[in-house]
């Protein structure tokens, strides 16, 4: 019996997992951005929904996003274990068994989609199911280990929450929510590649074909700069299609120019200097938050369009 325990050193720590460890399987920080962008989608959408049903819908979207995070941690436990950024996650830390993370994520996925269908409509529930499927199967299982375009295509999963939120309120998905989708979609590559620049060693060790690992440092910096320019223009598109007002235009122009300026600095530094990349990574989070916060403020105050 003693030898068996030696063979499974994690067994003792499994029994020590608390509710908090299961909660951290849901990637609470990613979840907070999902909740926020989905909420903005709900507020910006035309039509009304009972506040109670809106709250349950938002909860469903949050739990669905969290569930896909747990499934991602189940699938990528081997990668997470060798990356310094993720080595402390519950599975590589030996706190939660892999199979339990899979069951937890799968169960919450089904529950969140069903609950969203009850609280809003089948379109929103279908979109949430598609988001989970895309993140877990298309991104985590298929693309992440296959191509440096992994996060470019996989970014669609992170970009869908405002569309789901919009659909939950209005029951349809016209052009406007897809504009919000496009902003997050184009934001994802410069955001993650900035991270990959200063965490390149991690990805190399884990064998994940991130752009800096495959194409090199220079090519990544050029791609970041290119995407930043496209993002800066895409960021203004909510004004162009008439879903946002002049306040939004001002915010998106200023922050877009700032984004490009930081990306320009990243472009013109060499491999040894991680400062600009870290700065851009931090700013990118602020950028997305500010863009969506402005849409929220305009929608609430009636300044939009």
């Amino acid at each position, binding site marked *: 019996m003693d030898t068996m325990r030696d063979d499974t050193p994690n067994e003792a720590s499994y029994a020590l997992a608390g509710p908090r460890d299961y909660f951290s399987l849901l990637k609470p920080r990613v979840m907070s951005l999902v909740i926020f962008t989905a909420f903005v989608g709900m507020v910006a959408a035309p039509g009304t929904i009972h506040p109670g049903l809106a709250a*349950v819908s938002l909860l469903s979207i949050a739990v669905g996003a969290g569930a896909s995070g747990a499934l991602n941690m189940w699938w990528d436990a081997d990668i997470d274990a060798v990356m310094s950024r993720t080595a402390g996650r519950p599975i590589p830390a030996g706190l939660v068994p892999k199979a339990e993370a899979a069951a937890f994520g799968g169960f919450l996925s089904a529950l969140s989609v069903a609950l969203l269908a009850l609280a809003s409509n089948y379109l929103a529930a279908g979109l949430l199911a598609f988001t989970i499927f895309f993140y877990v199967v298309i991104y985590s299982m298929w693309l992440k280990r296959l191509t440096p375009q992994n996060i470019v295509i996989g970014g669609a999963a992170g970009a869908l929450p405002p569309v789901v939120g919009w659909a939950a309120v209005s029951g349809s998905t016209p052009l406007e929510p897809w504009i919000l989708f496009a902003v997050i979609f184009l934001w994802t590559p410069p955001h993650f590649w900035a991270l990959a620049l200063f965490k390149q060693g991690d990805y190399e060790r884990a064998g994940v074909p991130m752009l800096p690992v495959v194409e090199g440092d220079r090519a990544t910096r050029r791609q970041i700069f290119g995407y930043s320019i496209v993002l800066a223009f895409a960021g203004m598109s909510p004004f162009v299609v008439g879903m946002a007002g002049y306040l939004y235009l001002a915010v998106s122009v200023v922050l877009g120019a700032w984004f490009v300026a930081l990306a320009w600095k990243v472009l013109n530094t060499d491999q040894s200097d991680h400062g600009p990349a870290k700065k851009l990574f931090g700013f990118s989070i602020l950028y997305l938050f500010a863009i969506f916060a402005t849409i929220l403020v305009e929608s609430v105050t009636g300044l939009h369009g």
Partner: protein
Amino acid sequence: MDKEPNNNPGETSVSVPDEQKQRKQRNLAIALGLGAFMLIVFLVTILRIGGAVADRPF
């Protein structure tokens, strides 16, 4: 603390106080989660059906 009966031969887990405490917390979290889920489904039902709950043939 009493030792938990081991119903699973081949499993070596011995309940120490820390393990029991965490198990209790996990159980409590599951209970709260189930309770919250029941409340939410009830709330959604009432909000969606509303006053129309009486509109049915008897």
